[in-house]
C-alpha cells in the first residue's frame, strides 16, 4: 500500500470485538437461507428417532452416516456448481464412471488400492475439467452441455463394466465400515469436504467463485478470468463427486454403470431445499448439507412408518414438494 493511502488508517486491531460481531452478522445473514432446510432436518430427525427407537445409538448413526455420506458429498458438488451460477446434470453419471474405474482397474491393470483410487480421482477431475471447459471456455449452456457429457460418462462407465461386477478393493470397504471411537469413518470424507469449503471461503478463489455466481458480467469487467473460475469450480465439484463415488463404491463393493444415475436430480433438489438460488451466488453450503440429509433420511422415515413399499416413492416425492414449498416461503419472506 502506498504511503499516502495509509494516512488516517485506523489500527487494524483496534476493535477486535466489533469485528467479530460484524462477522457473525454476515455469517448469520448467509445462514438464514439455510434455515428452512435446518428446521426440516430437525423435523425429519425427530420423526426418525420416534419411529425407529434405536436411531440414536452409535451403530445406527454409523450406518446412517454410511448411507448419507455419498448423498451429502454429491449435493455439495452440485452446490459448488450452482453457487457459481451453473448446473451439472452429469454428477450422477460421474459417480458411475468413478465407481466403474474403481471396480475395473484392479482386474484390468492389477493395481493396488492406492493406485486404483488415484485412477478414479484422475477420471473425476478430467471429467470435471471437461464440463468446466465446455461451460467456461466454449460458453455452452450448462444444462445442455452437462446433460450431454453425462451421457458420455455413463457410456464410458458401460464400456468399462458392460455388466455389473468387478471388485472394488476390499480395503476400501473395511475402512469405510470402521469407527474411530464413536465417530464413523464414513463421516471423514464429508468432514474433509466441509473443511475444504470452509477454508476456500477465506481464499480468493472461493470468494471469486461466489462472486461469479452473483454477477459474472461484473467479474469480467473487473478483469477476472471468469472462464478459469468456472473451470476450476467444476473441478472442485468433481473432487466431491470423486469422494461421493468412493463412499458409495465402498458400500456396494462392486462396479455398476447405473449406480449413480438417480443421484443427479436428487442433488439438484437438495440444493434447492437447502435454500441455494439456482441463479447463483446466494445460499450456503450448510443449507445444501441439510437438504442432502433430509433427502437421505426421508427414505428411513417412510420405511419405518410402515408405509407399503409401493407407496414409498409417492410419499417421498410429496415430502420433497412440501419441503420446496417451505424453502420458497422462506425465500420470499427474506426478499
Amino acid at each position, binding site marked *: *500500500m502506498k504511503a499516502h*493511502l495509509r494516512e488516517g488508517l485506523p489500527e487494524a486491531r483496534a476493535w477486535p470485538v466489533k469485528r467479530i460481531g460484524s462477522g457473525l*452478522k*454476515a455469517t448469520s*445473514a448467509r445462514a438464514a437461507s439455510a434455515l428452512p432446510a435446518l428446521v426440516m432436518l430437525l423435523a425429519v430427525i425427530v420423526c426418525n428417532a420416534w419411529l425407529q427407537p434405536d436411531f440414536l445409538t452409535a451403530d445406527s448413526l454409523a450406518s446412517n452416516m454410511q448411507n448419507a455420506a455419498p448423498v451429502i458429498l454429491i449435493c455439495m458438488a452440485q452446490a459448488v456448481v450452482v453457487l457459481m451460477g451453473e448446473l451439472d446434470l452429469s454428477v450422477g453419471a460421474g459417480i458411475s464412471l468413478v465407481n466403474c474405474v474403481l471396480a475395473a482397474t484392479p482386474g484390468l491393470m492389477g493395481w493396488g488400492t492406492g493406485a486404483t483410487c488415484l485412477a478414479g480421482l484422475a477420471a473425476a477431475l478430467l471429467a470435471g475439467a471437461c464440463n468446466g471447459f465446455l461451460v467456461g471456455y466454449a460458453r455452452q449452456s450448462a444444462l445442455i452441455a452437462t446433460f450431454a457429457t453425462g451421457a458420455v460418462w455413463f457410456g464410458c462407465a458401460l464400456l468399462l463394466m458392460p455388466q455389473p461386477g468387478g471388485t472394488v478393493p476390499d480395503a476400501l470397504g473395511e475402512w469405510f465400515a470402521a469407527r474411530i471411537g464413536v465417530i464413523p469413518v464414513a463421516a471423514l470424507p464429508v468432514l474433509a469436504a466441509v473443511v475444504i469449503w470452509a477454508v476456500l471461503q477465506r481464499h480468493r478463489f472461493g*470468494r471469486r467463485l461466489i462472486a461469479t455466481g452473483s454477477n459474472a458480467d*461484473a467479474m469480467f*469487467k*473487473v478483469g477476472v478470468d471468469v472462464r478459469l473460475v468456472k473451470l476450476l469450480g467444476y473441478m472442485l465439484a468433481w473432487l466431491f463427486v470423486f469422494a461421493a463415488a468412493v463412499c458409495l463404491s465402498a458400500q456396494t463393493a462392486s462396479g455398476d454403470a447405473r449406480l449413480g444415475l438417480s443421484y443427479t436430480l436428487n442433488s439438484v433438489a437438495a440444493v434447492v431445499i437447502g435454500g441455494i438460488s439456482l441463479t447463483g451466488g*446466494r445460499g450456503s453450503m450448510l443449507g445444501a448439507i441439510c437438504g442432502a440429509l433430509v433427502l437421505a433420511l426421508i427414505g428411513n422415515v417412510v420405511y419405518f412408518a410402515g408405509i407399503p413399499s409401493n407407496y414409498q416413492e409417492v410419499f417421498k416425492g410429496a415430502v420433497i414438494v412440501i419441503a420446496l414449498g417451505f424453502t420458497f416461503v422462506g425465500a420470499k419472506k427474506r426478499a
Partner: protein
Amino acid sequence: MRSLRSNGAIMSVLIAKGLTKRYGGVLALDDASLTLNAGEVLGLLGANGSGKSTLSSILAGDRMPDHGSIEVNGAPLNPGSPKAARAAGIAIAHQHPGLAPDLPVWENVFLGAERCRTARFLDKPRTREHALRLLEGLRPGWNVDAPAGNLTAADQQLVEIARALALEPRILILDEPTAALAAAEVDSLMRVVRSLTARGTAVVFISHRMAEIESLCDRVMVLRNGRPVGELPVGGQLDEPRVLELMGGVACGAAAAHVHDGKRDAAQQRLSHGQAVIAMSVRGLRAGARLRGVDLELKRGEILGIAGLQGHGQEELLDALAGFRVPDGGEVRLAGPAGARTIVPRSPRQMIAAGVCLVPNDRHRQGLWLDHSVEFNLAQVDVNFEASPWRLRRAPIRRFVDDVVARLRIKTSDVRQPVRDLSGGNQQKVVIGRWLNRQVDVLLLSDPTKGVDVIARKDIYEAIGALARAGTAVLVYASDTEELLAVCDRLVVMYEGRIVAQLEGDEMNESRVTSALFGRSAA
C-alpha cells in the same frame, strides 16, 4: 489548464486512434480518436446514444473495438481485455454499477483486486478497512458488511466509484458518476478527483450536467452519432451555446418548444371542461424496498408527471398500479361509471378490466411481440378486443389498426410488417396505440420516450395530449425532467420510495424539481 507538465511539454498518457464499433446495423462509434494528458480532466459530452459509453467501455477493455488502436504511455494496449486495461492503470466506474449483490460491500470494492496474504488468502481486516476508508471519503456512514444488493442506487454508484479508486489508477474513467448522486456526494467526488489529478492521474468525466463539467474539466470533447465533432477548452467557463450546437441541441430545443405549444393548447382545452373529477386516488401504496408508501390523486383529463432519479420507486409505483407487482399494502380508489370503488391491484388483467392500462418501461421485453406484425401487436383479442364466441372478427380489427396507424403516424410499410423492423419511436407508438380502442380511465406510462428521437417524441406527446383531452387521466414517469416540465400539468417528485414534492403552476421549474430529486424539500 491545470495539466501537469514535464519540461514544459504536456505528457500524453493515453492515445486512442480510429476507434470504431458497430452493433448490428448501428454504428455506435465511428472513427473516434482521443488524447488524454496526465493530470487533466477531459469531459465527454454528447446526447444519448452519441457513443460516450461505448467509447469509455472500449478504453476500459469491456468491449472489443472493430477497428482502432489504444496506446497507454507509449505501449499498445491489448483491446477487449479489462484485465490488460487495469494492468495498464485504467480504471472505470460504469454508469450502471456492476456489483455482486450477494457479497458484502467491502468485498465489492476490491472485487478482482483482492488484497491477499500468503497463498492468496484474503486479508479481510486490511481490505475491509481500506474499502471503508475509500467509501467514507465519498459519503460518511457505511455498513460495509451488508450485502451490496441492499444498497440504494446512489450507494451502489458510490461503491462502483470506490472500486475504480481502489485501483489507484493513472487513468480514471467516470461514466455518468453523478447521475444518481446527491449534491454533497458530488462535491466529495469532485474533491477526490481533484486530489487525483494533482498527483498526475488523467480523468475522463462523463456527465450531462454542464455545471459539473464547467467546474471540473480542463477540456471537453463533444460526440455526436459516434463521432467526435469538436474539442473546447473549459478553463472555468464553458461555451454552452457552442457545445449545444455541436451536440445537435438546436434541433432538440425546437422540438421541445413544439411540445410546449401543444401542452398549452391541451391545458386550455381541459380547463374549459370545468371542475376536475378525481379518476384515481392512491393511499399508502407500498411494495418491496423501493416503494414505501405513496399517496397520489389523479384527476380526469390531467397529465401528472413523476420525476425521480433512477431507482427511487417510480417504475415500481407504475408496476404496482398496473397490477404487475402485488403491493404489500395500501389501497387504490378508482372512479368508474358505476361510482367509486376501492381495489387492490392483483393482476394486469384485473387492472385493464378496471380501465387502468400501462405502457411499460421496457418495451422490448414487456410491451411487444417483436417478431409479430404491427397488427398483431396493436389488436389482441381478450386484451383490448372483446372475444366473439366462435370466430375472429377481422373487419373491426383492421379498421382499428388502420385508424391507429394514421392517428399516431406510425411509419410502417404494411401493418403485417414485424415490429422488430420498426424504429424505436414507432415501436413505442404501437405500444401506446394498443390502448386507443377501449375506455382507458387511467393511462400509466413508464419512460415512454426512452430511446426515441425528437420527432417521434412529439407525436407521442400529442397522442397522450389527445387522450387527456378526451378525459383520460395520464400518469407519466420520464427520466428526462425537462420533458416532464414541458408536457405535464402537475408534477410529483419521488425520492426513496415516497413522494417528496408536489409542484403546480409556477412551482414547476428545474431548480425546484432538482432539489426535490435529491430528497430535499423545495426551498
